[in-house]
């Protein structure tokens, strides 16, 4: 942004040094004297009644301190929802340990505590569990049926919630449409998979009655509240400490059963208890995401204008409703329209309970799914009408003059309103940058030579800077150092750097001189955290306010002391000075001058320590265009992304380098979802992809070497002082759509129908085979 000194620069990250030198502190790196190790016994059956658990063999093993089952916990509540709580969903909450029934493979049955993890795992093998099998519910669509076993009896069936979002007269408009198309789309179950598994270390001090938990992430303050409630303790006796976090992606940091069990065990045993999730556990214990089936009908005019779109979906919730589980189906329903004008629209989603790992949000929750459904549908329209897919998009975009644009759907009970944007402009910029016309010409040549090259387009609108509020506090200490205390957290994205830049802008101190604290609930009493691409928008806005107030106070106090006008003063490198003179006061001097009892301007409170709150009234909506260029080896079914372009309007980028890093990293996860990653379950609801041998994360070899990012700042948000919008998820949401469209485009001469992800060699082979049979 113009006139800014630090905002808008590619400030190298302040976090890097410790992480590059091995000095980072991840939860597994924290060791306490007397620490013992926990492991969980997890169900190997998908659905069963628990008859008995006999831990005597495990307890007899030397080195085992305790084995806890549900009985030992006594009365303990279910883990509540963090976002969008609803009455009916309470019937499906998970308790920390299963007591009478297990409902997914991986569900915790008992907690073992032993001298080390090796012995703890030995002990797990010595626990005798007697289960009586119940029928599994593995398929999301069949799970709705009358024949399906019911997971939660009080629900009366497996549909926990039915979401309806209606705009205009979808059925009528559909009936009146000149052309009607329909398709069934499926998005596979996959999830975040941070490189660091989850982990916790809890320690209880009997003297102070404080339980301290290292390893909190994402939402430590909310988790403190849940834990305090479940333990029946005051929040002030629960101390959460965020360590360095090895990736979040929506999955890590939510309140899971272990988040209760580990502190509970530390209190029960009076010893520090460490639990580091192993990768096999992680695959079935941490939230899954994305699994949906959509039945879409769309009505269009001959020119490609959409008259009506209806999608009826089944969303796989898994076995329990998790803290943020409802976000995914609701967002999927709300964000199907994307950047297109859909005045007649219906989205219905059944939230179906199945005997699989519970689900929650994963980077771009609901939007990845919605984008796939919407953008594939746009390409279907293009194919039906023999129009260029770019042209169909142009004919349906919401126009800049329509901003702010009320979509007519709702998220968290609020209307979805796009705050600002010029979608057609960004679209044309993207096509020009990628050389769309030249690519089409190249494709024609390739086809003439029998090669399969495809170009896929996908556009989207994001929803970032999610509420409800965020906090920031800026303090100048007696040594003159500036410390920022932020309510947001870091899951590895570089929050410390971005916050330092924002504070630096206000105070004229170099970012690397600013100390940023976050995630420690004893130091920062209130905060919301890291989700919904909100850190910079909400934490940054609160900080901009707090630091601005500190700035004003510094100026006024210095003016008072120096007996000059505050308007004439400038802040430079930790000093307030009158330009052209030697009149100045350092931050250190001013901090001392601000102590209680010192002379102050009338009405000024002592201290250089100011807190501010940013309350989210409206979320911000960045938007983007993705273009994928793929080459398909049709004989082997192998699709390779040759080139990928992301155009993204961020409003204002505090650190463009980090925004680009978010987009490219987000793209890699999207690529995984498009081509590689799937959590596969058998008919018996056994997880078949329980390790990195079978769950395939993208490597450097699957990534295209040509990745182009077009970062524009044409549409600052009107909802915050800096015009900020979020960057965390825009790299991911449209990737499944763009790559699927590109593969479909490449293989269009063979007449294939791409309706599901991931596009593995086997899947592409089957699509070609099906097209040959049909054609």
């Amino acid at each position, binding site marked *: 942004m113009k006139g800014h000194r630090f905002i808008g620069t590619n400030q190298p990250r302040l976090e890097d040094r410790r992480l590059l030198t091995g000095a980072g502190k991840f939860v597994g790196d924290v060791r306490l004297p007397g620490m013992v190790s926990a492991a969980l016994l997890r169900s190997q059956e998908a659905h069963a009644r628990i008859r008995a658990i006999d831990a005597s063999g495990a307890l007899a093993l030397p080195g085992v301190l305790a084995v806890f089952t549900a009985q030992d916990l006594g009365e303990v509540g279910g883990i509540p929802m963090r976002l969008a709580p609803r009455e009916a969903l309470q019937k499906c909450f998970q308790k920390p340990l299963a007591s009478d029934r297990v409902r997914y493979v991986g569900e915790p049955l008992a907690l073992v505590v032993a001298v080390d993890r*090796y012995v703890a*795992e*030995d002990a797990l093998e010595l626990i005798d569990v007697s289960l009586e099998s119940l029928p599994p519910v593995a398929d999301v669509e069949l799970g709705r049926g009358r024949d399906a076993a019911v997971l939660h009896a009080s629900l009366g069936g497996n549909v926990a919630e039915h979401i309806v979002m209606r705009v205009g007269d979808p059925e009528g408009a559909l009936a009146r449409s000149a052309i009607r198309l329909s398709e069934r789309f499926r998005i596979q179950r996959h999830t975040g998979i941070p490189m660091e598994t989850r982990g916790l270390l809890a320690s209880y001090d009997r003297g102070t009655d404080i339980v301290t938990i290292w390893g909190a992430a994402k939402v430590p303050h909310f988790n403190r509240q849940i834990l305090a409630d479940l333990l029946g303790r005051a929040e002030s006796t629960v101390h959460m400490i965020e360590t360095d976090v090895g990736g979040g992606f929506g999955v890590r940091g939510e309140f899971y059963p272990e988040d209760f069990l580990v502190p509970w065990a530390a209190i029960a045993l009076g010893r520090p208890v460490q639990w580091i999730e192993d990768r*096999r556990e992680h695959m079935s214990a941490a939230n899954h995401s994305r699994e949906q089936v959509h039945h879409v009908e769309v009505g269009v005019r001959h020119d490609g204008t959409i008259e009506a779109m209806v999608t009826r979906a089944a969303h796989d919730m898994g076995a329990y409703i998790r803290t943020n589980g409802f976000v995914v189906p609701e967002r999927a329903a709300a964000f199907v329209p994307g950047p297109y004008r859909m005045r007649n629209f219906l989205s219905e989603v059944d939230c179906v309970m199945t005997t699989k790992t519970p689900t929650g949000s994963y980077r771009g929750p609901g939007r990845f799914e919605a984008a796939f459904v919407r953008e594939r549908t746009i390409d279907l329209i293009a194919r039906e009408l023999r129009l260029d897919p770019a042209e169909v998009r142009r004919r349906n975009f919401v126009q800049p003059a329509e901003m702010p644009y009320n979509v007519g759907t709702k998220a968290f009970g609020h209307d979805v309103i796009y705050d600002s944007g010029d979608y057609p402009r960004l679209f044309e910029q993207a096509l020009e940058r990628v050389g769309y016309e030249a690519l089409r010409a190249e494709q024609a040549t390739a086809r003439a030579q029998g090669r399969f090259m495809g170009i896929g387009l996908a556009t989207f609108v994001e929803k970032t800077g999610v509420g409800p509020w965020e906090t920031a506090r800026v303090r100048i200490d007696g040594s003159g150092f500036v410390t920022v205390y932020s309510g947001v957290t870091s899951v590895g994205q570089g929050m410390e750097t971005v916050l330092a830049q924002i504070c630096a802008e206000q105070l004229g101190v170099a970012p690397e001189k600013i100390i940023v604290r976050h995630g420690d609930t004893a130091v920062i009493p209130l905060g919301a955290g890291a989700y919904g691409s909100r850190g910079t928008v909400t934490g940054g806005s609160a900080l901009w306010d707090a630091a601005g107030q500190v700035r004003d106070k510094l100026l006024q106090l210095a003016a008072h002391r120096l007996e000059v006008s505050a308007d004439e003063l400038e802040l430079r490198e930790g000093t307030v000075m009158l330009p052209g003179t030697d009149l100045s006061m350092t931050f250190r001097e001013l901090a001392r001058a601000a102590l209680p009892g010192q002379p102050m301007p009338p009405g000024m409170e002592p201290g250089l320590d100011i807190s501010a709150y940013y309350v989210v009234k409206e979320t911000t909506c960045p938007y983007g265009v993705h273009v994928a260029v793929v080459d398909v080896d049709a004989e082997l079914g192998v699709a390779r992304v040759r080139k990928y372009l992301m155009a993204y309007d961020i409003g204002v980028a505090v650190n463009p380098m980090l925004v680009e890093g978010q987009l490219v990293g987000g793209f890699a996860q999207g690529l995984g979802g498009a081509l590689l990653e799937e959590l*596969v379950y058998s008919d018996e609801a056994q997880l*078949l992809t329980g390790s990195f041998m079978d769950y*395939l994360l993208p490597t450097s*070899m*699957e990534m295209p070497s040509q990745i182009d990012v077009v970062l524009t700042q044409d549409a600052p948000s009107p909802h915050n002082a800096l015009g900020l919008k979020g960057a965390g998820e825009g790299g991911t949401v449209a990737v499944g759509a763009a790559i699927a469209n590109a593969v479909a485009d490449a293989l269009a001469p063979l007449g294939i129908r791409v309706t599901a992800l991931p596009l593995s*060699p086997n899947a592409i082979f089957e699509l070609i085979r099906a097209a040959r049979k049909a054609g």
Partner: protein
Amino acid sequence: MKPPAFEYRDPRTREEAIALLAEHGEAAKILAGGQSLVPMLNLRLLRPEYLVDINRVAGLSFIEVKGGELAIGACTRQRAIERSELVRRTCPLLHEAMPFIAHFQIRSRGTIGGSLSHADPAAELPTVVTALGGRFVLRSVRGERVVSAADFYTGFLSTALRPDELLTEIRVPIPPVQTGCAFMEVSRRHGDFALAAVAVLVRFDQDGRCAFVRLVVAGVHGVPFRSADTEASLIGTKLLPEDAENASRLMAAELEPISDLHASADYRRQAARVLARRALECAALRARSHAEAGT
């Protein structure tokens, strides 16, 4: 994911190693590079009573030419084979296949003998060594025997190796210089086990007709698959594209591929067929260019 307890033995000589195997039999597992074994231990899919670590056994790591054969010690790291100029020169097929084995950080530790005796049907080395007509030297307190690759692989993850035997050496006949070879693979990601892979060796006679061909497929059967009929069908042909096409179809018809969550049997059949055709064409091209270079 911590391994179960075991007794650890780290013999220094082959004699000590085979004596330990004789003593403990099936209760013992040999630890070579450990790149397949240790994951299985960490996942507790295996629980041997004894681990006999052969990494410190003298004389198991070498690459040399002995009497027209390339001899490689069983504990030779895959990375050493990949780097070996001798291997590249004498046995280009083996050299070509090495980078397909996982990643260099795995090959730094993984051994040729470990991979060959683990016998994963989708692994590269068993297929390549089978194609090359390699032989395995197995030693025990009962003596030494030499088993051909064809006889060594007996089924899915199973070999002719007896519990008291140690694979000490792999001997591969060095193909004549005019041999053309090719190794091709399709996998989900770079470095993953093959959905299908094909190793081919081809030689032409002076009239430019196929005098020798070896075609071995990985990833489709429990053991490296070689089709004698397909090979026979190519002898005497010029190995033109249509010959490669016909042969690969013949081979594919014989396959009864495995299905798993990464690929169906039908996919594997098709992939093996396509790779066979491409590898035959590639190997034929190389053999011809060798012949031209030689004349």
